[in-house]
């Protein structure tokens, strides 16, 4: 190829586009939803038998993530009182009450090993990054909100109050384990009772199992939620004896990733594009043959 100005400009444009594309999209792991647990994956362990509902984690999360408060005028005062995770709340403490028994539940992204939200995201805005964190990159997000449908925990939230591009820039909002800050998650840092702790998923799972083993009958069904639920999550939960995980808002999930059914149907139907190509070929052949017969018939008439 001769070096002409046109060629150089073309090449630069292509390189620029590629670099731009690479810059906008963050490096992700393999795109074919077959995610596995890596040894240095991080996560959290929430032991609801230890939580006292102080909500230091809720406030700390808002501060570290620069989130606005959900100002609500109620009971005569003005409070930050989100009802649920939403466009300005990435972490929330909820109350599960059964008679006089009170259990506090911390809700945030579960960082599933094989996240359904990642599987359904059209252009990979939701993707895995180092540490097995389910991360979000608004640069390739079109705001289709399929992730809200896909997530069994209803974690991703949208900023409905915003609309305009650039000046308001609505995004999907969810916990990303404070990956933007080298200090790590704010919630685990401030918890005064270590009800929620941060560390390597493997260590946390071992710790959770240790607690269950050392305290038989203390925890619900003597099991750790997230070990296999939904294919496994990087955020683990322990619940007190008489409080089911469902009562805490954690859905009963099969042991396989939520996206497996959808992915396998897609995969089978479109394997290597065989079926579409075959159908296309068949349809074209039928029509061309019909046209040939018609022309033939017309020629005969003549």
């Amino acid at each position, binding site marked *: 190829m001769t070096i002409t100005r046109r060629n150089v400009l073309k090449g630069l444009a292509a390189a620029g586009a590629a670099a731009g594309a690479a810059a906008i999209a963050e490096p992700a792991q393999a795109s074919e939803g077959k995610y596995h647990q890596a040894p240095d994956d991080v996560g959290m362990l929430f032991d609801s038998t230890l939580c006292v509902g102080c*909500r230091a984690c809720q406030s700390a999360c808002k501060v570290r993530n620069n989130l606005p408060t959900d100002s609500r005028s109620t009971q005569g005062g003005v409070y*930050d*009182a989100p009802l649920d995770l939403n466009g300005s709340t990435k972490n929330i403490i909820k109350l599960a009450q059964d008679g006089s028994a009170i259990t506090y539940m911390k809700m945030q992204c579960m960082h599933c090993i094989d996240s359904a939200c990642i599987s359904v995201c059209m252009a990979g805005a939701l993707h895995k990054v180092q540490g097995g964190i389910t991360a979000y990159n608004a640069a390739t997000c079109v705001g289709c909100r399929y992730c809200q449908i896909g997530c069994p925990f209803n974690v991703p939230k949208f900023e409905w109050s915003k609309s305009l591009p650039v000046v308001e820039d609505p995004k999907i909002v969810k916990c990303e384990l404070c990956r933007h800050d080298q200090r790590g998650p704010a919630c685990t840092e401030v918890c005064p009772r270590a009800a929620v702790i941060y560390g390597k998923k493997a260590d946390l799972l071992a710790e959770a199992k240790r607690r269950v083993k050392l305290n038989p009958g203390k925890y619900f069904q003597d099991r750790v939620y997230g070990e296999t639920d939904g294919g496994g999550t990087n955020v683990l939960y322990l619940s007190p004896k008489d409080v089911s995980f469902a009562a805490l808002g954690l859905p009963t999930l099969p042991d396989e990733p939520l996206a497996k059914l959808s992915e396998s149907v897609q995969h089978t139907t479109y394997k290597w594009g065989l079926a579409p190509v075959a159908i296309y070929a068949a349809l074209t052949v039928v029509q061309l043959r019909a046209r040939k017969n018609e022309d033939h018939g017309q020629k005969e008439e003549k």
Partner: protein
Amino acid sequence: MDNIATDLIAELETKGVSRRDFVKVCTMAAGAVGLPAWAGEKMAENVEKGKKPSVIWLHFQECTGCTESLLRTSHPDLGSLILDLVSIDYHETLFAAAGYQIEAAMEKAIEEGAGKFVLIVEGAIPEKDGGVYCRIGSKNAIDTLNKVASKAGAIIAIGSCASWGGVPSASPNPTAATGAPQILKGKTVVTLPGCPANPYNLLGTVLQYATFGTLPKLDEKGRPEFAYKRVIHDDCPRRAHFDNGRFAKAFGDEGHRAGWCLYQLGCKGPQTHANCSLLDFCEVPGAWPIGIGHPCVGCTEQNIVFNVPIYTNMPIEKPTAPMAYPGIAPAQGGVSAVAAGVAGLAVGAAIGAGFVASKKLAKGDEK
């Protein structure tokens, strides 16, 4: 007021205070302002070695409340001890001298301590008409301030008046009263707003400077963060009432008498940076506005006190959670009756029309 170091311990002992008690006082003073406990020892050492910091205290447009507040810091005996930790070399209220004598005292203090003394400013400084509206000893306040500040090692503005103008600066501000930082542009001025300022904040700042030669971490308004970083609301003893929605609605009502939150009576606690709830005034527990049942008026904040009516609420910028929790699955979304009506109408109309059309055409076709 020269104190001969070696006589100090003797003096203390005559007052019935041992060196140990003296160190305890220093430690208390250190602790009250967030310095480590061992700083108390060092302070006591400095005092014994005669290295008491020199303090020059200027008064301008003020009510002397800040000085009075400082004087009320303890029982008389301990009080004078605390005053003995610093060497006050010029103070118009406390000095017996007057006239040319006191002016000479100031000149001497400035000369001897040039570059080292701590300048404490109390009161606002008028700027209008060259600053004639406050003249002491035939000199305009603004000129005195500039002159003394130029030789100071550290400058502290005590009280709201010196910090940003205080009462004299309230609208319409006929004298163009303003605070020391606005006059001494470019210089680091520690401001300790409050009306009056809490004296322990002053002591802590001065003692830190005296012991370590450093000033505490200041915010963008020059206020030490150890005292002014948080708002009253954050450390208020009545916070639990706020979080639980228990408010006094009128002075003397049941809630007021029970000591409930004063937010609905106009308390400016959520917007006011100060540590009044943590350090009592006059060392009397509960001797501060909210403690005696009156809403905070925001006396440290320029845009609140003398500006926003005392019984008017201001918006809370960073609210925190109430003592109420959302349930696991709170009810969200809803149905509007109008919408249901519209939808019902549309669907009904479509089905009805389709049915009618189909029936009519069917009959027509059969004919």
